[in-house]
């Protein structure tokens, strides 16, 4: 089925070409594909005006994602393992996870200013909940039958945790990581637009202010490629680490 992978992008490109080269949509609204791709190539390999923002976006995105993931897995494991911890924090967790992460932008600005630290905290916060919730469920529900074996074999608690409970939660954790990675990218771009940070989001906002629509589309394509590659990378890692999943 992988041989049909090109079909979706080809159809999209075809429709885009029809709409723009025939003049059905004005270039000020949607530029022709070749102009967008030229702008993208020029931005990356020519003048290089996309390289700096790309680096800044990737840096804050990955760092915040890793931080949110680390804390999410750590606390998720604790809350999933202990019913007492989970029930003590259940209300708070459900309250905060329902809040759109961009809602905390003003609070972050009040506390930390329009600085990188604000962006870092908002993105980590958004990532944290997806990974935390998935880890909790993984640890809580992925182990039921396995715990019976642990009881029969009298496996010590620490070995139970490292050899049985954590591996059994990995499929859930990876589902959370994939979701968290996409959400982190979305929030990164959003936060950069709001904070006027010098990343791809900030550049989109600047391009919007100067009516450089071609560059906006070039950035959209670039962010899409970034999301696609990162997701593929995580999927590959997932197949290697949890090779038993889906078998």
């Amino acid at each position, binding site marked *: 089925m992988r041989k049909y992978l090109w079909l979706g992008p080809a159809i999209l490109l075809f429709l885009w070409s029809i709409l723009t080269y025939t003049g059905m949509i004005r270039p000020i609204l949607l530029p022709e594909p070749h102009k967008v791709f030229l702008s993208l190539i020029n931005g990356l390999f020519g003048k290089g005006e996309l390289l700096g923002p790309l680096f800044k976006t990737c840096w804050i995105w990955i760092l915040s994602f890793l931080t949110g993931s680390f804390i999410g897995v750590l606390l998720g494991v604790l809350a999933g393992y202990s019913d007492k911890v989970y029930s003590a924090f259940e209300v708070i967790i459900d309250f905060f996870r329902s809040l759109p992460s961009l809602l905390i932008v003003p609070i972050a600005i009040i506390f930390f200013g329009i600085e990188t630290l604000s962006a870092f905290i908002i993105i980590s916060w958004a990532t944290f909940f997806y990974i935390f919730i998935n880890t909790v469920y993984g640890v809580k529900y992925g182990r039921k039958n396995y715990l019976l*074996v642990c009881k029969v074999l009298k496996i010590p608690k620490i070995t139970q945790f490292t050899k049985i409970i954590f591996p059994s939660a990995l499929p859930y954790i990876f589902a959370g990581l994939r979701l968290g990675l996409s959400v982190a990218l979305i929030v990164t771009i959003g936060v950069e637009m709001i904070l006027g940070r010098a990343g791809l989001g900030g550049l989109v906002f600047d391009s919007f202010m100067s009516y450089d629509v071609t560059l906006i589309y070039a950035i959209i394509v670039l962010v899409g490629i970034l999301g696609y590659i990162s997701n593929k990378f995580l999927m590959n890692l997932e197949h290697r680490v949890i090779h038993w999943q889906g078998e």
Partner: protein
Amino acid sequence: MPEIEIQNLSKSYNLKERVQVFKNFDFSFNEKITAIFGPNGCGKTTLLKIIANLIKADEGSVKTSLEKIRMGFVFQSPSNFIFPWMTNYENLVLPLRLDGIKEKQIRTRVRELFETFDISLPMSAYPYQISGGQQQLLVILRALINKPNLLLLDEPFTSLDYLTKIKVMNELSGIVRKNKTLTILISHTIDEAMVFADEVVLLSEKPIRVLTKFKTNFKRYDLRVMKSKKFIETKGKILRFYK
């Protein structure tokens, strides 16, 4: 003292309505190998799990004659009870590694086990790479590898093909008799129960009570035994209780 003595056992579940599985249930397991035979969903697995201390009874007690219990348990649906991130070998030898046995001795024990059962399993493969029957074999072997003194078998032969089933059942029966392992088998096949155990216990619907129990002395699963007059008569007597 009986091998296992159950006194005044009560257990109920709160499903859509309250389901009473045991109500003041008393029973003594007097033989080394006992087979339990009863209708679907009557609570046989619950009984085994209570004996194994995997679930708590609401009331009552379970006492055994064993001083220090080393348990082997073969659960129903074996694929749910093997660890898919471990190789078949790692799954098999887990009880020995937990006991801190040296790798050389572990390998010897694995070889012995395979020779006894005259079978082989792809040890470097993962559980999802072998068939359901092989997974069941793996679980049976894991339950035996640390020479348990209490062996609980919950329909352990269901996924095995006919010939493997006969071979495994006969070898298993030989091993538990030789090692004097206290064994309880749950089976839905009366022939299996009769040839494997020294005593067959027939249970009723919920709340469980013992309908009757029969001593058996067939010990091997082969055609000669199963065609014998004694076997057919005993089977007839047992099955009459469900008419």
